[in-house]
């Protein structure tokens, strides 16, 4: 009760074989904040997301969601507690239609569990919610198209749609705009902003334009540790971050030209 954090990592560690990938990461995120996670390739950002969302169990350390320990729980258990994530590599249900994809994302949170005694068509709340989502991610026109026949950008949008479908309060997005053009990215960021109003958001991004445009705070992960966690301006000014991640002019150019 007293814990104010929506998500908190305490000295999280994870080793694969002998290599330690996450080396004592700590982070505390307030409810309603938008956090961008940045860091060099292979720093462990995705791994961090995997640990939080239950894909892997941490070697040691704690993860707390709204004050409850969730480390070591299964993904579906964590999801039921109100945390949802998207994937860096598109991960949807290829042989189901757009609408069905979204409805799958909705069912558990509305309490339908494993029931086989009700018809889907009669679940008005689930259907309405799925329709609304579809509208939000602008895929209404593709309602009955199989997900595998969507274009890349549409699939990415669907990916986000499924992620937010369950109404989770904490949302993790792993490189949501990867592979999109500038304009699409911009549209997408708006979309993300729109659908995550009032929620806690963590997103991994390499595009500095996006990062600075979206985030309230930035967490910098290097070699499995959070080396900086601050406002965008402060992080950009941070010498260590410059060295480890941003490099020289490219970052500047990107940050400046992000808006184009």
């Amino acid at each position, binding site marked *: 009760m007293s814990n104010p954090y929506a998500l908190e990592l305490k000295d999280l560690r994870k080793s694969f074989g002998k290599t330690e990938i996450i080396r004592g990461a700590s982070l505390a995120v307030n409810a309603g904040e938008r956090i961008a996670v940045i860091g*060099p390739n292979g720093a462990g*950002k995705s791994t961090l997301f995997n640990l939080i969302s239950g894909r892997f169990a941490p070697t040691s350390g704690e993860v707390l969601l709204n004050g409850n320990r969730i480390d070591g729980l299964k993904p579906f258990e964590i999801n039921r507690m109100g945390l949802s994530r998207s994937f860096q590599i598109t991960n949807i249900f290829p042989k189901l239609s757009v609408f069905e994809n979204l409805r799958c994302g909705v069912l558990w949170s509305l309490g339908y569990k494993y029931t086989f005694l009700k018809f889907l068509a009669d679940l008005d709340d689930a259907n309405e919610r799925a329709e609304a989502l579809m509208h939000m991610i602008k895929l209404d026109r593709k309602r009955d198209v199989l997900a595998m026949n969507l274009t890349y950008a549409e699939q990415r949008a669907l990916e986000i749609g499924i992620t937010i479908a369950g109404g989770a309060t904490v949302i993790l997005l792993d*490189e949501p705009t990867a*592979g999109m053009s500038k304009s699409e990215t911009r549209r997408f960021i708006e979309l993300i902003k729109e659908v995550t109003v009032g929620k806690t958001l963590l997103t991994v991004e390499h595009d500095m334009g996006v990062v600075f445009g979206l985030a309230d705070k930035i967490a910098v992960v290097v070699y499995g540790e959070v080396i900086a966690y601050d406002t965008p301006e402060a992080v950009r000014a941070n010498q260590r971050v410059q060295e480890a991640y941003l*490099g020289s002019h*490219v*970052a500047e150019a990107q940050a400046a030209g992000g808006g*184009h």
Partner: protein
Amino acid sequence: MLKIENLHAFYGKSHVLHGVHFNVGQGEIVALLGRNGSGRSTTAKAIMGMVDCTGVVDWKGKHTLGMKPYEIAHLGLGYVPENRDIFPKLTVHQNLMLGQKSAKGGGRWSFDDMYEMFPRLKERQHTEAGVLSGGEQQMLTLCRTLMGDPELIIIDEPTEGLAPKIVELVGEYLKKLKEKGISVLLIEQKLTIAMSISDRALVMGHGSIVFEGTPDTLRADAYIRKEWLEV
């Protein structure tokens, strides 16, 4: 070296490239720009013999159209596909091994060169490639193609998902390739890097080339940029 004329490509019944013309000279970096879906990746695949197409693809005086991809690769063309087609169950080292065209090796590049270029890969060389981070996978695909010792390398969005610092590094490396006499056909989304290293830029729109010129002329041509590159 590479000459493309009137190239038409099809996915089943859908006609994607409508008569593409361009060429790439020795030791030249040519950037192929364009919006999503304009047909750049398809052009790359067409050159590699991976889609149905008609027209002329001439590589060092040889018509390669209709050849199988592996035959084309043996002629000295290298291709780095766009969506990180690493082989997930093989280790990093094995992935690189598959880049070599013959088991004996003997190309211009050795494993060590690659590891030197991206030390990160050396650290992870015995890990399954499937668990690499997104960026590491991107590095791996690039190195894997280099291991095949190509004379012309077609790179589809190499900087996708890379940290800004690494993006810079890739840029540097492409320039080094050029110095060694290797031609590069660079398909890019990020204008900044493409403009800074390429000798020539092509802009593609709706399956044909709509602009050809130096980066500087492109920079100057606001209409082309507005019409074909941005929204």
